[in-house]
């Protein structure tokens, strides 16, 4: 244990809505550091991978400064995520981060976090997945993580990174939730981009995690132990074992669904809607939202009316909200930074009359999405619509 945390504990709503803030010209990685500085975490565990590394260097600085009591580098992502699991099981508030190939390397651990009801917060600085080797921004890893049981928040800006990461700890730890939260940010596009962010300037931090209040027992031999069962159901082929596993999977998903009210309380609606009456609406998440905002501006100059839905929460998927917001849309454009088009698939799966969806443009491999390209797709969609 290093120096004592010099910050005063305040509840999350104070931190998000009342604490004084000041504009700082910082990168997304620095925004993560500033969130973690005030998150009162017990331990952070790191492993290098571009473009995530810088974030965990900065969290290392927090360790050196005394804001994080324990910090070390593990041997690979699977090990790190397992170390994170052990730390959470033993009653700690834990933070880690990874991306792309690191996410894939650690993959087996993520459903285990959810199944073990661990309130871990992990930042994913999304990047492409090999082969061929790439280090460029791409959100393909999110497609893989959709069914891991974790809550998934997708940041558009460094400001989102700051607020989402801070709120993630408390949302994850709510007694009726207590599952991991993945905070996703598009690698480089936000992590390495410097922009103005409102950062809390008061000497305050989140209240400490209370493992005694957790809905699952903390593994510390402080609560009375018990023999869990005489005849374990694990790996037994009988009705009880099937039901136990099936109902537990349902429970993990139910926990994610119960997180909605907490997310709304702290981060607002699960989707943000602009100009919902427009006949053409763009649905996007992450930095594709930013590119959409620019394209909508360009479209306006050409008298094309386009609305926007920013999907902040990918899991639990805001099905009802999206369906309601798109009820009148004639064309729905879904631009994405990956080849799979996972967001388009998610929306198509819940939307009646999903022939309205135009699932373009898709940019993958690391390039940016020029608003001009998006504008072309808008124009084409509008032309088809009027034909």
């Amino acid at each position: 244990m290093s120096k004592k945390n010099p910050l005063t504990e305040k509840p999350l709503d104070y931190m998000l809505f009342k604490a004084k803030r000041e504009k700082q010209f910082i990168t997304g990685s620095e925004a993560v550091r500033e969130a973690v500085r005030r998150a009162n975490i017990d331990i952070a565990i790191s492993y290098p991978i571009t473009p995530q590394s810088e974030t965990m260097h900065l969290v290392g600085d927090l360790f050196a400064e005394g804001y994080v009591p324990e910090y070390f580098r593990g041997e690979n992502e699977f090990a790190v995520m397992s170390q994170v699991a052990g730390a959470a099981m033993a009653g700690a508030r834990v933070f880690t981060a990874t991306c792309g190939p690191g996410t894939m390397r650690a993959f087996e651990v993520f459903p285990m976090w959810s199944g073990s009801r661990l309130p871990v917060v992990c930042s994913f600085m999304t990047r492409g997945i090999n082969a061929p080797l790439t280090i460029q921004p791409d959100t393909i890893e999110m497609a893989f993580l959709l069914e891991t049981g974790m809550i998934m928040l997708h940041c558009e800006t460094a400001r989102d990174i700051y607020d989402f990461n801070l709120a993630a700890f408390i949302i994850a730890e709510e007694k009726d939730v207590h599952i991991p939260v993945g905070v996703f940010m598009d690698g480089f596009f936000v992590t390495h981009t410097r922009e103005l962010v409102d950062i809390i300037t008061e000497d305050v931090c989140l209240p400490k995690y209370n493992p005694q209040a957790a809905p699952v027992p903390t593994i510390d031999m402080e609560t009375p132990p018990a023999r869990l069962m005489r005849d374990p159901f694990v790996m037994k082929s009988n009705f009880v074992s099937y039901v136990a596993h099936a109902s537990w999977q349902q429970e993990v998903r139910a926990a994610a669904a119960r997180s909605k009210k907490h997310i709304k309380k702290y981060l607002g609606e699960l989707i943000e809607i602009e100009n919902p009456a427009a006949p053409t609406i763009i649905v996007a998440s992450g930095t594709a939202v930013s590119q959409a905002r620019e394209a909508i501006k360009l479209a306006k100059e050409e008298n094309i009316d386009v609305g926007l839905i920013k999907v902040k929460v990918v899991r639990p998927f805001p099905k009802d909200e999206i369906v309601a917001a798109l009820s009148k849309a004639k064309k729905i454009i879904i631009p994405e930074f990956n080849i799979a088009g996972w967001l388009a698939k998610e929306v198509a799966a819940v939307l009646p009359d999903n022939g309205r969806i135009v699932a373009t443009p898709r940019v993958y491999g690391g390039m940016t999405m020029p608003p001009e390209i998006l504008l072309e797709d808008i124009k084409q969609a509008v032309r088809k619509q009027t034909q």
Partner: protein
Amino acid sequence: MSKRITEMCPALNDAMPTEYRELVENGPWLGDKTVKDLGTFKELLEEHPLCAGCNLALSLKIILSSLPNPADTIIVGSTGCSSLGFMQVGIHNIHSLFGNQNAVATGVKRVLSMRFPDKKKDVVVMAGDGATADIGLDMTIHSWFRGEKITTIMFDNELYANTGGQESGMTPAGRVAYMAPLGKKFPKINLFEIAKTSGCHYAVLLTTANTVRLGACVKKAILLARDVGPTYVQIHTPCPTNLKIPPEESIKVAKDSEKERYAFNEYVSEAAKSFLENTGNKK
């Protein structure tokens, strides 16, 4: 954990199962039990679903009876036959995935040292040879490199037993097994030697045949891990089911191996030696 925490709430006393009451009243909580005391106290594990004649089950029973401080001991297991036994053990234990036991234990140990600076929380890893030396080898060794103060115990049945008897890195060369239909092509991994050069302060190679010695070595390994550094216990636990040994002969097979690859071998680092001398626990 306070020894008192295991005391039964009087109001619940008649509502709790007899087994649990016995565990509370007569469990090995003071940590002063040895193998020789077996039968005089309520064991942390009395029933298990492992096979008749299972050497792993026997060593698990001995280990659990030899913990120096069971009231503050956390077990981290792994997937395999051993994971079938842990759920009935009367102390906190973790099963997360296959092979990541030393990584999970690292997280547990770091956090418990932080949360309870005035207590000694022992973290003991128990896993099979596949988990320790194959799929989890990097995490096993890296926990030693980092000097994590945990005890790693390997149940070495020299194959993957829970999946039906496949070759593992710990299988002796030449032995025919599933996935090695023409016999294993490379020698048994010498994890004992690796442990010595990777930061372990205590490493021991032994079998289930000498139960008193096994209990004493486990106790020593846990005490040294608590104060000095990583320790490693490798126990030969021949699998009667997959090796087709009659249950009543399985200990004999373990004993026979002491004449060759499982001759008792104990390594104690200089730091561990002086710790044992200073604490009067030279044995």
